[in-house]
């Protein structure tokens, strides 16, 4: 080992030697100091604030494990950390597709379901390498200035119908969500969306393509465009619409034919505080913290027992409230995990045409 190190050093020059030496000196001290410290990376913004208030701080008080926050989640960074062996994040809040992708790329630690009690947790969010944090929805959103509640488009077929519902509209610059909506607009029944008929979906997208401008890239955009009056119809994440309603924007959403999805906690392979991360996951998926976060920000708890602790008034804005959930499509992350990369490439080509 030492002769290999020496040869390697000679080859790679002074820089590598210096950094290797630093790592060797620092590592033992760090491991010791960090056993009581947990670095959590999430998406920032109002969502992470809610996590801080209802999860990070109470967890710290209860267990004495100090939580250090990072943001925003970046899959590229996660991969770089694991591959370079310098894993700074112990726990990361990722989108459902990246549990599948991360598993495939061998970037994640398997979860310890001896420690984590999944009683009450919706089975679809329980995965060997990740477990749900919250549910969210991508939905049809509209300007209430233009459409009185009740007169707004309630299906994707109506969203596609630019004669009956004219006006500028925006959709996400991503095949995810849009291809499902395109099939729904083409009258494919909700329970027959997956596996998706991609050809049919793109043909349906062809019909709406020219009416969409802009194609949004960040979650804040559709909400902003709606409240500025730049667009009158949009696809948007449900929580964002409630956030701008609070600020007085004239916008609302339609749950019908929305797409339910979830975020997951994952532990990067080589995390310095795997046990702490596991403890946090076990704690945070329980009904009480799940109810607390859903009360703070209208996303859906992943533990169905949390609804017993949520007021009926608050529950009606949540994507997983039974009334809302039954009118929505549930994402199939496994299907997307297999097809995403090819579809993104096709999507980009389609947009440029």
């Amino acid at each position, binding site marked *: 080992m030492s002769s290999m190190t020496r040869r390697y050093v000679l080859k790679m020059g002074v*820089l590598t030697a210096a950094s290797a030496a630093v790592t060797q000196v620092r590592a033992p001290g760090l491991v010791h100091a960090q056993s009581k410290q947990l670095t959590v990376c999430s998406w920032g913004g109002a969502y992470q604030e809610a996590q801080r208030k209802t999860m990070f701080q109470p967890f710290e008080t209860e267990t004495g494990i100090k939580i250090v926050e990072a943001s925003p989640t970046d899959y590229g960074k996660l991969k770089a950390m694991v591959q370079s062996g310098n894993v700074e994040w112990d726990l990361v809040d990722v989108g459902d597709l990246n549990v599948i992708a991360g598993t495939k790329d061998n970037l994640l630690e398997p979860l310890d379901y001896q420690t984590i009690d999944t009683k009450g947790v919706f089975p679809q969010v329980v995965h060997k390498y990740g477990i749900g944090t919250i549910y969210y929805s991508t939905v049809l959103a509209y300007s209430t200035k233009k459409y009185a509640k009740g007169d707004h488009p309630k299906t994707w077929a109506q969203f596609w119908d630019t004669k009956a519902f004219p006006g*500028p509209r925006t959709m996400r610059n991503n095949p995810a969500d849009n291809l499902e909506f395109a099939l729904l607009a083409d009258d494919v029944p909700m329970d027959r969306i997956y596996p998706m008929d991609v050809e049919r979906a793109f043909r349906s997208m062809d019909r709406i393509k020219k009416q969409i401008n802009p*194609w949004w890239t960040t979650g804040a955009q559709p909400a902003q465009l709606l409240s500025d009056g730049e667009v009158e119809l949009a696809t948007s994440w449900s929580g964002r619409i409630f956030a701008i309603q609070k600020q007085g924007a004239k916008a609302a959403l339609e749950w019908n034919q929305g797409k339910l999805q979830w975020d997951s906690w994952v532990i990067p392979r080589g995390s310095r505080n795997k046990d702490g991360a596991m403890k946090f996951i076990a704690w945070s998926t329980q009904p009480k913290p799940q109810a607390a976060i859903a009360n703070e920000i209208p996303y859906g708890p992943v533990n169905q027992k949390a609804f017993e602790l949520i007021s009926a008034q608050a529950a009606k804005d949540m994507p997983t409230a039974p009334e809302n959930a039954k009118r929505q499509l549930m994402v199939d992350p496994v299907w997307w995990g297999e097809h995403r990369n090819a579809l993104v490439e096709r999507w980009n080509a389609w947009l440029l045409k």
Partner: protein
Amino acid sequence: MPALAWLGIVFVYPLGRLLSASLFTPTLSLASYARLLGSSIYLTVFVNTFEIGATVTMLALALGYPLAFVLATAGPRVSRLMLAAVIVPLWTSVLVRTYAWMVLLGRRGLVNEGLQSWGLLDAPLPLLYNRLGVTIGMVHVLLPFMVLPIYSVMKGIDTDLLKAAQNLGANRRQAFLRVYVPLSLSGLATGSLLVFVSALGFFVTPALLGGRRDMMIAMLIDNQISQLLDWGLGSALAVVLFAITAGLLLAVQRFTRAERLWARIP
């Protein structure tokens, strides 16, 4: 020597890593490059990127050159004030400046509402989410990089030369074009290069102000690196962008050297 070592560490080493990431996927192969050539998207996006870069550079030059001239020839107080006006936007985040354009250029933005309320327009003009929006936003962000190098060169030009030329029978236009402009060419070349090369790597502005056809290469690289985790293709795109840019720079450098030589001959 320490400077060379420093350059080696901060430039050559990362570039080497980039190159190896594009070649080892995970074993040595040209698969990423083959994919890049095999699909028309990447070519279209490269063409987009260079088109936008060239347009932005020309517009920045058209606006920046006269501005730099006024700056260099105005009195000290005016010039100091104007210089501050050029530099202050550099301290504001690109994101903020980009959002400001959204407020101005939108369908319900200041420009469209203003023109409509004066009866000059019936329907809002499409100023945003198209090539025009991207161009306006990028010219705004990059203008200081054009103005400053030209200004610094112009500051060193002796304006008595213009008077001398006029004394020798040149009219004002001739004196400006044949004496002043050639002397300012090195600033012009530096400014144009800075703007062009920075424009090639733009990400935020085209992503927020552009339409579906205005995809630039940096957006595609981000897509591959941080969303699809396809580092092979992402790195290959970056390597190709780097190679084309470096090639262009070398060619331009040759060209401007010849230009300067030519300029010195009366």
